[in-house]
């Protein structure tokens, strides 16, 4: 069974601070996705990275896929209260049956004023 470990599990910071969330595995994935989930809702896709070493930026969010495609990081600059939520990474495997995602353990982020 493939596992994706996220760290930290919980993070509480003040508005304006920077933070990094890590997603690590011993397995290689064909793609790595990051989702954000708010209470009572399903996860919403933020980004997909597919190439080892790839870096993608989405406004104040920077995503990186490790060179060996086993790990990823999410960096948020100048966090805002609206960034509060559960952040999930998910590794994709393209199999004969489709795109099966293995989700990470999640990082609960709280940004306070």
């Amino acid at each position, binding site marked *: 069974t493939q596992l994706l470990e996220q760290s930290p599990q919980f993070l509480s910071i003040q508005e304006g601070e920077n933070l990094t969330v890590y997603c690590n595995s011993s397995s290689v994935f064909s793609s790595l996705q990051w989702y954000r989930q708010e209470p009572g*809702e399903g996860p919403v*896709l933020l980004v997909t990275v597919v190439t080892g070493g790839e870096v993608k930026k989405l406004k104040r969010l920077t995503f990186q896929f490790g060179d060996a495609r086993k790990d990823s990081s999410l960096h948020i600059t100048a966090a805002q209260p609206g960034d509060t939520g559960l952040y999930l990474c998910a590794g994709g495997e*393209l199999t004969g*049956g*489709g795109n099966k*995602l293995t*989700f*990470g353990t*999640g990082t609960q982020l709280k940004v306070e004023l």
Partner: protein
Amino acid sequence: GAGVSQSPSNKVTEKGKDVELRCDPISGHTALYWYRQRLGQGLEFLIYFQGNSAPDKSGLPSDRFSAERTGESVSTLTIQRTQQEDSAVYLCASSLGTGNEQFFGPGTRLTVL
């Protein structure tokens, strides 16, 4: 509809009862997934449907769990003889096909007393 819908949004049942959860995917999406999410944790893959292919049932935790899908539309997840450890949010997602972005519904929160 505009997005993936699930019903009911909440379900409280007694231990030993059967429950049926429904998912309406986005029209035209050939792939449909079911996940289970325990409180504050990541998502656990349950089952995947792709078109008319045999479903990937590799994530179902026991033979009490089963799912059906009619063509490329509605899917139902059935849990027989529910146990307290079945309490979780059950999320459904759909995608255009293999390797495409998965869009999630809001989930059904199941509580087994």
